[in-house]
Every structure is written in structure tokens, then in C-alpha cells.
């Protein structure tokens, strides 16, 4: 069930990111649904499943970008892993921590892309555009991501509530915001 849910989410994100979101950009910057989904998977599905889902998200993004396989899968997988640790140790379910997680992850992901560009193609995004662009992208992703993660948590809650065999014990989140 979780596997099917992850696949459906990724397919929808792919379609929305490459078609509907494309015209919505400010100074050539638009929110990255793959990154936001990686954070969500890490926060909601625990270390193993969350990290695997993050890696799979990155592989999908690499295939669509036509770049080296492994570039985005490494950064998304790593990001999901960090988010899963944070959700275990801190209150990963609240909005403020989600905001900073998505913002921080965007910065790390952007820096990683820049390094790969320099190492593999001897080319990089000019710094006068890259640094402000990355900060704005981080802010954009964090704002959109908080709403999206909240919505996905609700959706997941509805689905898990409906498919739970034991109707008396509906799944609940613990104090760290992780589904018990």
C-alpha cells in the first residue's frame, strides 16, 4: 500500500512539475516538487522506507533531466535520510521544522548540483545569479513545501485510517509527529 502510494505521488509530481508548474516561475525559479516529496518521505516513512523513496525520487529526476544517474538520487536520498533522523529525534511534524528542513535541503541540493556541474562539465551557474537564486528557491520551496506536506499528511491519514484493519485503533502520530 505504501509502495503504491509513493509511486502515485511521484507520478503526479512528475506530471505537475513538467507541465503545470513550468509557466509559474519568478526570475526563472519555480518550486521543486521532487525535493519537497523527498523531505515528506523522510519525515513520514522512517529511515529505511523514507530513504529508499528519496533515492527513487532522485533517480526519476535524473532520468527526466537527461543527466548522470546518481546525481539527484544521491542528494535526494541523503536529504530523505537526514529528514528521517530529524523526525525521530526532534518534533519533525511541526511546520517550523519542516520549513527549515526544506530550506536547508534546497541549499544543500543546489550546492551539490553546482559542484557536479563544475566537476563533470567544467561549467557552473554564475555566482551572481546562483547565490540569490538559491536563497529565493529555498524560500519558495519551504513555503510551498509546508502546505504540501501538511496536505499529504492529511491525505495519508485518511487513507491509512480507511485501510486500517482494526477500526477501533486508528493510527496516531507520536509527539515527534511520526505515525505510530
Amino acid at each position, binding site marked *: 500500500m505504501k509502495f503504491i502510494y509513493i509511486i502515485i505521488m511521484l507520478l503526479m509530481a*512528475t506530471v505537475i*512539475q*513538467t*507541465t503545470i508548474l*513550468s509557466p509559474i*516561475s519568478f526570475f*526563472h*525559479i*519555480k518550486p*521543486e516538487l*521532487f525535493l519537497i516529496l523527498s523531505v515528506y518521505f523522510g519525515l513520514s516513512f522512517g529511515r529505511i522506507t523514507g530513504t529508499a523513496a528519496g533515492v527513487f525520487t532522485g533517480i526519476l*529526476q535524473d532520468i*527526466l*533531466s*537527461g*543527466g548522470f544517474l546518481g546525481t*539527484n538520487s544521491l542528494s535526494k536520498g541523503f536529504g530523505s535520510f537526514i529528514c528521517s533522523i530529524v523526525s525521530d529525534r526532534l518534533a519533525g511534524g511541526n511546520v517550523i521544522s519542516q520549513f527549515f528542513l526544506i530550506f536547508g535541503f534546497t541549499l544543500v541540493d*543546489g550546492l551539490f*548540483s*553546482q559542484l557536479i*556541474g563544475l566537476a563533470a*562539465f567544467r*561549467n*557552473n*551557474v*554564475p555566482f551572481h*545569479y546562483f547565490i540569490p*537564486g538559491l536563497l529565493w*528557491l529555498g524560500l519558495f520551496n519551504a513555503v510551498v513545501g509546508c502546505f504540501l506536506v501538511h496536505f499529504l499528511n492529511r491525505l495519508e491519514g485518511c487513507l491509512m485510517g480507511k485501510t486500517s484493519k482494526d477500526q477501533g485503533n486508528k493510527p496516531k502520530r507520536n509527539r515527534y509527529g511520526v505515525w505510530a
Partner: protein
Amino acid sequence: MVLNLTLLTVSLRETTRFTALESVLSVLLSPAQEIITQISRLVTDVWHGYFYLVNLRKQNELLQQELRKLRAQSSQFKEMELENRRLKEMLRYEQATQTEMVIARIIAREPSNWTKVITINVGEKAGAKKGLPVVTDQGLAGQIISTYHQSSRVMLITDLRSSVDALMQRSRGGGVVVGEANGLCRVKYFPIDQEVKIGDQLITSGLGGVYPKGLTIGKVSRIQKSQYGLFQELEVTPAVDLERSEEVFIILNPEISPTITTKKSN
């Protein structure tokens, strides 16, 4: 009968005799008459104000629906007109060049902010191959990097991985145009002693056999000269509006330069 005839005769002869009677009747009856007239007016107003208005509201709603439908149709016709105009322009360009081209529609765009890759709806079935150049009537757009049965992926010239060997059209100085992922390109290895001005046009040099010679790449928008070093860096605005383009051409025979043929006037 006698009384009636008497009254008639008297009133015909003396009209003023019954004025007092009329006044008394008027005084007694007029308030009641006024009240009843006002009530009947109120009932008429309610009838017209409410039932008529309800009818009017329904008519209004129907008309609004019709207007919305017509507006949507008008918008669709406008879109078809614009597409028709665009395709006519592209057809004119295709007919003017001697190269063999296939028109393709852009169906998806890049999945991240740091890569500039689009997906088009023409694949191997229609003759697309890896490495073929992709253009519009305005200039060079990119290169096909992967093909599938009915679609292909195109790396735009603004992608970080893209590099195009270029010539300055005016001064004939050479350089390499690379993408910057911010919608612009940069010219690397442009000799520092070569003269260049803002607005100078860059075209493909044809070297390397990937892109045919003479395709417009863009215009110089910024010049960065350092005090030391062998090269100057130029910022280039692509000729093609890659964010807004909807259709592109794939050049199937890139070994032939797409020179525009013009008819000689007699």
C-alpha cells in the same frame, strides 16, 4: 319614476343646488378611497417587484451562462488563430530554407531549476535521432540528447552541459557558447583583442559537425573584460525565447546549412 324625473329636471335647471351634498359625500368617502387605492397599488407593486423580478433573475442567469459559454468559445478561437499564425511563420521559414525539417510540439519542460531540458512529441518513428539540432524560426534552441519511439528529449543551449562553437557575425571572432541555467548563455574563450559591442549577433560556426553553420544563437548583452588574461567573457541573450516557445523544428540533415533562399527580382 316620478322622483327620478323630478330630480333630473331640477338638476338640469339649477346645477348649484346639490353641491353641498357632493361635498359631504366627498368628505366621507375620500379617505376610504385613498386607503383602498394605496392597498391596491401595494399589491400591484409586490406582484411586479417580486414575481416579475424572479423571472428577470432567471433570465439574467441564463444570459450569463450563455455569455460565459461564448467567452470560452471566443478564447478558444483566439488561441487557434494564434497557433495558426505561429505555424504559418514556421512553415514560411521551413519553405525558405533548403534543409529537411520536422516540426515538433513541446510537451514537457525541465524537472528542476538547474537543468534545461524539454520533451517534444516527435521520436524515432518520425526520424528524430540523438545529436540532431533543434531550431525555431528565431534561431538555435538546442540538441536532441535522447530519443524514444514517439518523443525525444532536447537539451537547450541554456543548459549547463551545452556548448556550441560560435562566430561573431560582424567581427568573425570565435568562441564557445555555454549555458548558464538562468535563461542566458556565456561565451568562453573569446580573445581579448577581438572587438565586440553590445548587440553583436552570434551564429553557429559549423565546426564539430553538430550544428550547421549560420544558425542564430543570440545577441551579446554584457561584456566582461579583465585586466589580465587572454580571453574576455560575454553574456549572451538567446535569440529564441526558450521559456515561451511551443513548437520547434528538428533539422534532419545538419550537414546542409539552412541558408534562406530569396527570389531574384526581374
